[in-house]
């Protein structure tokens, strides 16, 4: 198997808030074109990994590289322009703005914004429901639709790497399925994805490779198939 280039490289990452260290020596890679997931219990530090990549965690040491560039020393507002789009935990939309305004804001920091209508069309193809509701205020959408807006807003960047933090949390099963179909499509279109998911079965279904995080340490890693077969994973996360 020929391996593609390293896109995201994390080595010996420690991170925390104030005095408390949450991540202890994380090593994690995403290759160009990969779909990787991070699974683990509540408070294991999954969101903190994504937030460290986006430079949103105050105390970080260790190596963080993206497409060859060092992320250390960069401010959080510089990250999207590098090609990393982050969909944070919870349904974070701009409630009093329309769906269209929300999407446009996703590409707000790009210097050149040549093909915004085309990019928006790409989002609407993925989530047709948003096209119908383009003029509606995002705050009045259903939970699933808001999450679509949040994902669509991230896609407006046409990122090389998409960070998804529990995108299907609290959504109806049918919407979750729709959402994961969309992720598969996004991945097939060429975007690398790093997905944090509580629903381990689903995560291992869509991702090709995974990491298991326990109390701020990588406890296990492997292909989705391997993790699916692993007795510890099955017992702890799949309830089998």
């Amino acid at each position, binding site marked *: 198997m020929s391996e593609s280039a390293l896109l995201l490289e994390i080595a010996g990452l420690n991170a925390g808030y104030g005095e408390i260290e949450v991540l202890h020596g994380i090593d994690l890679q995403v290759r160009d074109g990969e779909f990787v997931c991070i699974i683990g219990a509540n408070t294991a530090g999954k969101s903190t990994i994504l937030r460290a990549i986006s430079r949103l965690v105050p105390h970080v040491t260790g190596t963080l590289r993206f497409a060859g560039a060092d992320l250390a020393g960069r401010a959080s507002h510089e990250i999207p322009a590098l090609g990393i*789009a982050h969909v*944070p935990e*919870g349904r*974070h939309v701009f*409630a009093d*703005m329309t769906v269209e305004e929300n999407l446009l*804001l996703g590409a*707000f920091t790009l210097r050149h914004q040549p093909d915004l209508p085309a990019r928006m069309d790409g989002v609407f193809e993925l989530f047709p429901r948003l096209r119908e509701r383009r003029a509606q205020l995002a705050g009045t959408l259903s939970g699933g639709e808001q999450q679509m807006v949040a994902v669509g807003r991230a896609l407006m960047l046409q990122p090389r790497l998409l960070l998804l933090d529990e995108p299907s949390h609290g959504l109806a099963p049918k919407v979750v399925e729709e959402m994961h179909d969309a992720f598969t499509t996004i991945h097939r279109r060429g975007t690398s994805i790093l997905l944090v998911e509580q629903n381990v079965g689903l995560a291992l279904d869509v991702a090709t490779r995974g990491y298991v995080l326990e109390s701020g340490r990588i406890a296990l890693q492997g292909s989705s198939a391997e993790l699916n077969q692993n007795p510890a994973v099955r017992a702890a996360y799949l309830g089998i």
Partner: protein
Amino acid sequence: MKRWIAIAAVIAVAAVLPLLLNPTGYWIRILTFTLLFAAMAQVWNIIGGLANQTSLGHAAFFGIGAYTSTILLLKFGLSPWIGMFAGGLLGGIAALIIAVPTMRLQGHYFALATLAFGEVMRVIANVWTPLTGGPGGLSVPFMPPSVAAYSFKQLLPHAYIALIALIVVTFIFEAIRRGAMGYRLRAIKENAAAAEVIGIDTTKVKLQTAVISGVLMAMLGTLYAQVAVFFDPDTVFSAASISIRVALIAILGGVGTAIGPILGALFIIPVEELMNDLFSASAAGLSQLIFGVILIAVILWRPRGFITVFDAMVARLSGRAGS
């Protein structure tokens, strides 16, 4: 759009009104201060309304402006028009100094930090006697009347200067609100977490609003000094009658809207003056009490400010005109 027609009408009335009043009289004084406080509240609205940071320390910048231009006039004979810009510069620097450590604070914490900063400035002005004249205050020296010297025999020109200032800061407010900066601020206000991940530099944009607001507030301090002719630290650095009052005017009128501070000032300044006239002779403190009761009643009646009454009126009028 309809709102702007209404605003044009208000400006036209405001432009004619001073001419109808006795140019040396009582009402023109109230009008001048109403316009000035509307401008101050509008400037507060840039940070308080657009950046959603409730400052209770704007007297700091106001006082810096009043003192800077007056001291430059006293010591060097510099025209207050120039002193106004020197004050603006210092006001902007002061705003930056206070904003850097406090901008990350939210809500009450930011309000308290700025309140303390205003008080610190008041204390400094009281003790730095060689420069500020200390608790005794400063008198603006009399200059032969001329526009260049910013000196007039009557209040009428002051009323017009205050009106122009109000129009200018209102346009600045609107330009920020509708521009890219306004979009960033709106994004931060509506969802800070989402604003972070789409690459908005939250700290920078908030600092920008703080500095713009500080500069303009200091410049208005010069306008005040020239009208008042005499002031002391407890007046221009007052927490109650400057900092809290401008915040109150904007909040009562409709925070974050261009018309709110104007409506708020049109109500608060004359009513407060009227209460003082009616009751201060009979019982000291009674006027303040009644004024407070009126404010509470208004806030309970219109929690989102007079702007809601105004919008309803405009809607009804234009609806009638349309049918």
